[in-house]
């Protein structure tokens, strides 16, 4: 399978390019939208949340940005990616190529966007005077874990969506829920002594976002033990994802 994918690397590359450039084709700001969108989102939360919750978080805007940018990568991969097989029905019916290319290019183009938008994080870290620490070298580890996790989930959702079209809407709802169950707008500490604290322990996204924040915002080391558990979990999901995808892909051309 890997050999086959390697042979089709050019297709992956041009698909990622198409995904990034094609998305905003015809719009005035073009690719800049991938920056502007999360920034506007940050703006809304930064304006609204301090009023609703008595927020005492210092540097709240930077705090938010570090949570929202990785989340944006995750959410665009899953919620837009779920329909990636259906969206490419045209070529699926007529040409053979490894179908895994489609979900892989969704997650990869999200990764490229995320890496570029890390510039925003850097700028805000500089402006706010938080600065950087040597712990930044661990960021790639977190990125790899998030990549594996997203791809695993997407392999499952995108292939199931071909057979049960409702999957798309159910996934969107679940992802929305997950947004509030992940410490993006707030710090998980405020729930430490409440009965719902277990959510943050079980939610892999929570571990991932917290790890980004530990490194960028608090300049400490991430919790390696939790990260390792999430890493194993992600590998497991990826493995299950590949199995499900392999099983279902044989019917793609007939079902789309």
């Amino acid at each position, binding site marked *: 399978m890997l050999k086959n994918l390697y*042979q*089709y*690397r*050019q*297709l992956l*590359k*041009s698909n990622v390019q*198409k995904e990034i450039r094609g998305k905003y*084709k015809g719009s005035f700001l073009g690719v800049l939208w991938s920056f502007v969108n999360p920034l506007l989102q940050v703006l809304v939360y930064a304006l609204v949340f301090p009023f609703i919750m008595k927020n005492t978080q210092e540097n709240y805007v930077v705090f938010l940005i570090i949570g929202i940018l990785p989340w944006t990568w995750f959410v665009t991969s899953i919620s837009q990616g779920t329909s990636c097989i259906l969206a490419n029905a*045209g*070529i*699926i*019916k*007529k*040409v*053979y*190529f490894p179908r895994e290319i489609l979900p892989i290019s969704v997650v990869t183009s999200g990764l490229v966007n995320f890496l570029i938008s890390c510039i925003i994080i850097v700028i805000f870290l500089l402006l706010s005077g938080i600065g950087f620490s040597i712990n930044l070298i661990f960021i790639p580890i977190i990125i790899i874990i998030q990549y594996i996790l997203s791809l695993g989930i997407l392999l499952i959702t995108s292939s199931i969506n071909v057979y*049960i*079209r*409702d999957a798309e809407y159910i996934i969107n709802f679940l992802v929305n829920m997950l947004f509030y169950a992940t410490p993006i707008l707030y710090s998980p500490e405020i729930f430490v002594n409440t009965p719902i604290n277990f959510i943050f322990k079980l939610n892999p996204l929570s571990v991932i976002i917290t790890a980004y924040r530990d490194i960028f915002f608090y300049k400490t080391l991430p919790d390696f033990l939790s990260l390792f558990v999430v890493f194993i979990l992600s590998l497991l999901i990826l493995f299950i994802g590949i199995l499900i995808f392999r099983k279902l892909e*044989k*019917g793609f*051309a*007939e079902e789309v």
Partner: protein
Amino acid sequence: MKSSNIAIKVENMTKSFKLFYDKPNTLKERLVFWNRKKADTRTVLDNINIEIKKGDTVALIGTNGSGKSTLLKLMTKIIYPTFGKITVNGKLTSLLELGAGFHPDFTGRENIYFNSSIFGLTAAEIDKRVDKIIEFSELEEFIDSPVRTYSSGMYMRLAFSIAINVDADILLIDEILAVGDQHFQEKCYKKLQQLKDNKKTIVIVSHSLDSVKKLCDRAIWLYDGKIKMDGNTSEVIEEYLKKCG
């Protein structure tokens, strides 16, 4: 040694499609109509056995709906057999439909890159071929315009030029050559003849029996999902015409 001479091997292969009268696509429909009578199945290809040797040029003939295109799709691995198996040795390229995977807003040149990458070529390999492809398609003037502005003949010329320049060992072609004008059709058959001389394997679905007779050494006549006759092209075509004519 023996198996390495075989390009495509189809063993006891059966393909059936489910016929849904109103296919449940959503969860609601699945739940509400869970007890609805199971869809009928229709066997499109029934227990097919074919061995195609390397270097063979084979024509698939038969009336509409006899399963020719389905067989090609099965060989390309776009769809999979219900029973039995198909083994393919070597790099395979198929040309099942005009410009499958062309992006209408991209220029001809961009589509050459995109389409060739669908066939599994790398950027360097495409760079090497791009001039040859453009030259063969005779679209020099239009190559940097978006393909949505192309006529269907131009579309076909570009698609065909890309597919035959992939240098696959096995080439599958569905009835598409009819679109080009006389001049381009002749050029295509000449190119196919050249590929044949280079010991490439070609499987072609066609209704233009005369061209098939010239190009192919072997013809397989499919009738109602079964192989009616398999053998020398002119003999098979003669029988076929007797039956249908």
